[in-house]
């Protein structure tokens, strides 16, 4: 068919006009698939031949000493950092290495940063509004209206994260823990297929930690969740499957008990302690 015919065809919409399809093909198993990924900064290999698979609906914890490459791994998945080698697939259809951050985000990968980043000048309500899954192009955004459905959804999330009373306050005045919660709430608004959560309980009280654990385990099944965390108690309380990273590659994988009895894991953690002591 000629280009002109294609242009004048009335019964189909052009690719660039169709909203980003968030159809993730998981019929063949994993939702996230990383193979032989390597990243180096000036010769230093932050990630070295990393292989990682996350199944649909899984809750996975990733642990590892400082500099093991946990944050860099998240950067790669979300498109912030490009690997030098390797491949990263979301489902079996989307090659993440060919996409930029917004495209990846609209595919359904949400990320919570290590340091909570919310929009401090906007209110809690508006933070959630912006995060909501919607048509995020310019004109629809300019003419967007708050429908009852949208408001209900925001209210629902506000309820979940316990910030209903603070809905019209600027996010800047929230406490550290509340900001963490708000950020998780923003992730929920995105309705992502895969959630990347970087140190969700840093700076939280015991009670807040418990609620976070509840929330994350509640999400698993519907969504896939990857949690990077230092707090071993927290990891033990939520994890079914744990991956240990060391020097940019996977050192061990298994249940928490299997992993913590693995001699190489013990050595890495004790070795790291030695270095710190020296």
């Amino acid at each position, binding site marked *: 068919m000629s280009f002109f015919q294609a242009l004048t065809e009335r019964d189909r919409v052009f690719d660039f006009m169709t909203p980003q399809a968030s159809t993730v093909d998981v019929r063949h198993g994993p939702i996230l698939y990383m193979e032989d990924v390597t990243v180096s900064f000036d010769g230093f290999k932050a990630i070295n031949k990393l292989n990682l698979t996350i199944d649909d609906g899984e809750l996975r914890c990733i642990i590892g000493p400082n500099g093991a490459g946990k944050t860099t791994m998240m950067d790669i998945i979300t498109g912030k950092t490009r690997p030098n080698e390797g491949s990263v697939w979301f489902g079996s259809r989307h090659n993440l290495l060919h996409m930029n*951050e917004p495209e990846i*985000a*609209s595919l359904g990968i949400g*990320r919570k940063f290590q340091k909570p980043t919310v929009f401090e000048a906007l209110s809690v*309500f508006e933070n959630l509004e912006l995060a909501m899954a919607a048509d995020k192009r310019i004109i629809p955004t*300019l003419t967007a209206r*708050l429908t009852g459905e949208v408001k209900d959804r925001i209210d629902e999330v506000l309820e979940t994260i316990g910030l209903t009373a603070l809905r019209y306050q600027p996010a800047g005045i929230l406490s550290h823990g509340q900001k963490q919660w708000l950020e998780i709430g923003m992730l929920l608004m995105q309705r992502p297929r895969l959630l990347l959560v970087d140190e969700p309980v840093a700076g939280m009280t015991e009670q807040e930690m418990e609620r976070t654990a509840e929330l994350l385990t509640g999400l698993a099944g519907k969504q896939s969740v990857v949690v990077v965390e230092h707090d071993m108690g927290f990891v033990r309380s939520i994890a079914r499957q744990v991956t240990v990273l060391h020097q940019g590659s996977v050192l061990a994988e298994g249940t928490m008990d299997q992993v913590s009895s693995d001699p190489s894991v013990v050595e890495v953690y004790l070795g790291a302690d030695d270095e710190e002591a020296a």
Partner: protein
Amino acid sequence: MWLTRPFNERSTQIFLLILTVAVIAVTVLHLAVPAGHPLYVSGYTVGLLGKYLTYALLAVAVDLVWGYLGILSLGHGAFFAIGGYAMGMYLMRQIGDRGTYGDPILPDFMVFLNWDSLPWFWYGFDMAWFAFAMVLIAPGLLALVFGWLAFRSRVTGVYLSIITQAMTFALMLAFFRNEMGFGGNNGLTDFRELLGFDLRSGATRLGLFIASGVALALGYVVCRSIVGSKLGRVCVATRDAEARTRFLGYRVERFQLFVFVVSAMLAGVAGALYVPQVGIINPSEFDPIFSIEIVLWVALGGRASLYGAVIGAVLVNYAKTVFTGVMPDAWLFALGGLFVFVTVFLPQGVAGLLGHLKRRRDDEPSDSETPDKEATA
């Protein structure tokens, strides 16, 4: 409709009311009060106020990108000047054969430079509709190309400020060249009439003043409807945490480009209204110092507050008129001091000060901080 949303906001209502009252008052005092009466507003003053209004529109345009998007453009003078040149070219063509050399087509400076035909980019400027379209298109196109290049490669913050400054500097050098075909050093001047109205008559001057007021009101409403929309909140989000906004799925560079182009077009309109009121456009409008001065107006008035930008533009330019008349040497000291004072002691500007006072009085958040709930709802 998103364009009508601002009319529900109290701050916009107050602003439009004050602007309307001021424009009507000046008109009445100019027309109805006899000359010599203490309340009489002279034709000169009307022209001066009209100039301030165009500056105010320019300040609103800068505030839109700086205040809400966090992009400090040090090159908005360029968009203003390009809009001005588009208008100037139309006015030049309107002179017709009444110029010094009496050439029916070529403007005087081209005859002087021994050019035998009109350069291609001057075609069409004898038609008002074309010239007025160019007032929007030319600055918009420059902003589109420049912004597309810059935002695509994520040039932001200080880097963007520096290259916008380089852009206006390069344009200034270019427009100073006679070979460019824009009158070189002297620019475009000796205008006679606009849409058939004699530019030297008092009535036209008053008409231009009112037109500037209307343009400012429209520009204000357009900006307000942008910043009050969800898009405006995406802008603020981009300003405060660009990476986070990307991870939410917004194509930040497109939003930046959109707002940057709208702002450049508003600046172009301001320039187009400025030129017939001052009677000349020359390359000095491209001077990087002028562009930085605009930013000062906004900073003084209050960043991220559109009415603040208007207050700032009027205050600084009024001060400039007074100072340069009374003690010209002191003006640069005052201006320089103002830069330092505002940034160090008044980071929220006059609008921030007003908001602070208001909050103290009735102890509730002002609407420049949190948009009206009715507007959001």
